[in-house]
């Protein structure tokens, strides 16, 4: 009986994995084929990889775009984690009516479609003279109600006795946060880091508007302009997509251990 149910679980997970992985396999195959083979749906490896890579490097300034994307995603993620976890901690551990109301208000900010606030936001950054900088891309989403909410909800299961113990030891509020809360919440930070990194890395609409010169562009902007040509070369596009996807996968690999080890283990 036990065996059977475990077999069922594996079968279910295998199907889910195959469905999930299929596009990646296709992407990797596409990378090695010509555009017209991809369009025809050829599902076997070809020999065009080198030529596709060379053409892509020729056509775009991929190195600069990679660097811009990396800078924005890393600084943005660190900033978001610090600020959002601070707020999530403050809102949940020190709940009060006033804070609940303020948080309710902040929640409204994530419900507004970005296209509707883009123009005023653009005007604002222009007035601050910050257009065409990574700062302009990072700042508007450096704290989001979304991430604050995530930290709040996770903090609900945070063992508050730890804080009491810390207070007895004479730790101040900031040290309690930094030395007791942060290490305990590692799995939450890891999940938040993956999601935030991904959001920054893939963000499109705002970088498109805020960045103005070719040398400041991020990777998604490059991919988008490749895909819209009159005669799109899907082989080149596939290479660009694989390069764009890899860093997020890497971050996931690096951080996933954090939330499978178990929180209780990491406290000790």
């Amino acid at each position: 009986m036990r065996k059977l149910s475990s077999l069922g679980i594996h079968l279910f997970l295998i199907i889910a994995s195959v469905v999930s992985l299929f596009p990646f396999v296709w992407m990797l195959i596409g990378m090695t084929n010509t555009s017209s083979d991809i369009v025809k749906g050829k599902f076997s490896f070809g020999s065009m990889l080198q030529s596709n890579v060379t053409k892509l490097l020729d056509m775009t300034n991929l190195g600069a775009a990679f660097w811009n994307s990396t800078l924005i995603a890393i600084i943005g993620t660190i900033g978001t984690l610090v600020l959002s976890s601070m707020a999530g901690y403050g809102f949940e551990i020190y709940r009060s009516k006033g804070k609940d109301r303020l948080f309710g208000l902040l929640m409204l900010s994530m419900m507004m479609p970005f296209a509707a606030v883009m123009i005023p936001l653009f005007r604002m950054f222009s007035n601050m003279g910050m257009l065409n900088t990574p700062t302009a891309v990072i700042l508007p989403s450096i704290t989001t109600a979304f991430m604050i909410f995530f930290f709040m909800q996770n903090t609900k299961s945070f063992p508050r006795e730890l804080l009491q113990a810390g207070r007895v030891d004479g730790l101040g509020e900031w040290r309690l946060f930094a030395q007791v809360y942060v290490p305990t919440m590692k799995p939450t930070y890891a999940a938040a880091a993956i999601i935030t990194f991904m959001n920054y890395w893939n963000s499109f609409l705002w970088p498109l508007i805020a960045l103005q010169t070719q040398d400041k562009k991020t990777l998604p902007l490059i991919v988008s302009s490749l895909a819209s040509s009159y005669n799109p070369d899907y082989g080149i596009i596939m290479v660009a997509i694989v390069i764009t996807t890899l860093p997020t996968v890497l971050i996931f690999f690096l951080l996933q251990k954090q939330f499978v080890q178990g929180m209780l283990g990491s406290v000790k």
Partner: protein
Amino acid sequence: MGSKWNKSSLMGWQFVLLPSALILLFSFYPMLQSLLLSFQSGKGTVYQYAGLANYSRLFSDPMFKQAVLNTLLYLVVQVPVMLMLGLVIAYFLNMPKLRFKGFYRTAIFLPCVTSLVSYAVLFKSIFAVDGILNRMLMSIRVIQEPIAWLMDPVWAKVVIIAAITWRWTGYNMIFYLSAMQNIDPSVYEAASIDGASKTRQFFSITVPMLKPIILFTAIISTNGTLQLFDEVVNITNGGPGNSTMTISQYIYNLSFVYTPNFGYAATVSYAIVVMVAVLAFLQLKVGGEKQ
């Protein structure tokens, strides 16, 4: 105890102030500007005050009505399926004795990092009239004639729902997995000793313990679905007819595809805000913030 709490609740503000100020500056200030814009009408930079005209236009606008109906359908069908799936997968992957979980975890997470371009090209080719899916279904004799998935208003919606579920299930799984680390494994051990089945454990331990996170993902997904844009634009571009168009796509069209009417676009945006806010409020009530 009482005085200590008051003191510490005052203290809490130092953690909250700076992040809140940033959100107020970068989100609320533009939101107020777009609220003002929603009372104006015109094209591009040529505007005049129009009172509530934009708001009354909403109620007689067939495109808007269609977009709202489509979006609500996605919401009602897709969000529960996706969250349930994400939760079940996370539960399996959290079983201490399961093998190959690293592989499964990575594989199932991957779709949400895929570039939309590749995902759109791929989904279109899978669901093409002579695409893989039709060929498979025909070879096992489920269907006689190929189905024109993306040209039929009903099937096109099914494809969109499948696409969103494919892309975002792994994303929600991450939230659940990380939250499951907060459950002490000894709770499960005790339950096993008491003879509770895995299914029982799932419903009587995992689900209640994860309630705050389930609530979180429900609100986030509701918000995400009501603002759904990328999938639809890239896979069906709202078609056939306008049968898959979403509210966000309509806002985008009003601002950047049609002769720009930013005033009306702002009005439609506020319609989304109101809908999400009401739904989030309901979810918070039902999801029991009582504890």
